[in-house]
Structure formats: structure tokens, C-alpha cells
């Protein structure tokens, strides 16, 4: 494992996911979330639990980079994109399961999945471009 590259990829992906999450959930989908206020915490409550969002994102980023580094590294950006698409496919399945049990609007499932697919493709590009196995790292 190339830990230096792993760390750089982790930080880069963390920053990207944070900005993307803010843009998609905090700006683009804000009105869709507002349709079901009973399903979400209030703004002040969310703010008080903000550190949980940071922690959860660290879990996501760690898992993404770890799987790429152990199974897809060496394939570069294309392998990263392929991995991102497959991982998002799993996320879409999980989102469908959540939609089946929680009464949020169907468009949140569709828009969230489209946003998630774009997000994971870009994540694959970032990690694929940064992480290189020891033997191929320059």
C-alpha cells in the first residue's frame, strides 16, 4: 500500500465530497427536502450534529480509497470511474431500500441517484488520478 498517495487521495476526495454534498443537498435539492420537513432534523439540530456528518464522510472516503487501492489501483482514472459507477450502483440499491420504507418523494430518489452517480464518477477520477501502487508511483 502506498500510504502517502492514500493520504493525499483521502484528503482530496474528502474535500470534494464535502463541497459536492453541500452543493447538491444544501442548494440544488433544498426545496425537495423542504416538502417533507417531518423526516429531517431542524437546521439548528443539524448544526449541533455537524461533527457526525464530518465523521460519516470520513468513513465513506476511507472505504472508497481503501477498496480502490486494494483492488483497482494501477488502472488509473478509467479504473477509478468503473469502480465509482459500481459503488454508486450499490448506493442506489440502498437508496431504493430506504425509499421503500420512508415516505420521501420519488423525485428525491431519482435526483439523489443522478447526483450520486455524477459524484462517484468524479470521485473515481480524483482517486484514480492520485493513487498509484508503489511500483508505478513517480
Amino acid at each position, binding site marked *: 500500500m502506498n500510504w502517502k498517495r492514500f493520504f493525499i487521495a483521502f484528503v482530496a476526495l474528502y474535500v470534494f465530497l464535502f463541497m459536492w454534498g453541500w452543493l447538491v443537498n444544501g442548494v440544488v435539492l433544498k426545496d425537495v427536502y423542504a416538502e417533507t420537513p417531518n423526516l429531517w432534523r431542524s437546521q439548528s439540530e443539524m448544526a449541533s450534529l455537524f461533527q457526525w456528518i464530518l*465523521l460519516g464522510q470520513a468513513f465513506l472516503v476511507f472505504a472508497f480509497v481503501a477498496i480502490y487501492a486494494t483492488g*483497482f489501483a494501477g488502472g488509473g482514472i478509467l479504473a477509478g470511474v468503473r*469502480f465509482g459507477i459500481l459503488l454508486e450502483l*450499490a*448506493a442506489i*440499491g440502498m437508496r431504493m431500500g430506504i*425509499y421503500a420504507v*420512508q415516505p420521501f418523494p420519488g423525485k428525491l430518489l431519482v435526483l439523489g441517484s443522478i447526483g450520486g452517480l455524477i459524484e462517484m464518477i468524479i470521485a473515481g477520477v480524483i482517486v484514480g488520478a492520485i493513487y498509484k501502487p508503489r511500483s508505478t508511483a513517480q
Partner: protein
Amino acid sequence: MNHKRGFTAFIVAFVFIFFFGFLWHGILMKPMYLATAAMWRPEADFNNHFPILILGHAVVAFAFTGLYVSKVGMNSAGVGFGYGIVIGIFSCGVNIIRFAVEPLTANILFMWFAGDLICFAIMGALVGAIYKPLTTVT
């Protein structure tokens, strides 16, 4: 790629995740969901969305198996177990973020955490035990 073994692994993963979900969420966690009933679809509405739940499980099983199969050299129950743990960590990241934005209880978060780690670890071991690349099939 060994399509026959890959398909068998997918079917086993799908059946396992479905029954694990029924046991963990439908029986073990039922009192927790009843205590937060306003967050979930009523029984009749849930039944109407049941096909989406099944499809979501199939998509997760397909992506999980597809990711494993894509990883060169991963062909044992032990490696599959480790892969499942990392996917479980990914899922836990999603759960932590959901806890920060949805009015879930800490008990639900803890049970989701444990459930996802156990479920994906066993699923990984099953897929790892079943799938073998063509060259290593005996």
C-alpha cells in the same frame, strides 16, 4: 470472468441480504421502528413499495458481487470477508450522516452499524467462497 460462479454468488448474496434484512430490521429492530413510526411508511404503504425493496436488494447484491469479481486476485472467503467489512464501513458512513440529518435515535444508529457490518462481512465471505476466477476453478 467466471460468469457461472459470478451468477451463483449473486443469487446467494441476494437471498442472504434479503433474509438478513428481514431478521434484523423486520424482527429484531421492529420495536425501535414502532417507537419512531412517524418516520416510516405505514404498513399498507410499505406493502405497496415492497417490490422496490426487493429490487433495491437485488441491485445491492449485483453491485457487491460485481465489485468483488472486478477485483483481481480476490478469490477466498477470508478476502471476501475483509472486502465485506470495508463495504460495511462505507454503509456505516451513510448511516452516520443520516443520523445527523434525520431524527433517528442513537439505538437505531447503533443497530444499523452492527447490522451492516455483520451483513456485508458474511455476504463477502459467501461471495468469496463461491466465486473463483476461471483459471482456479477445480
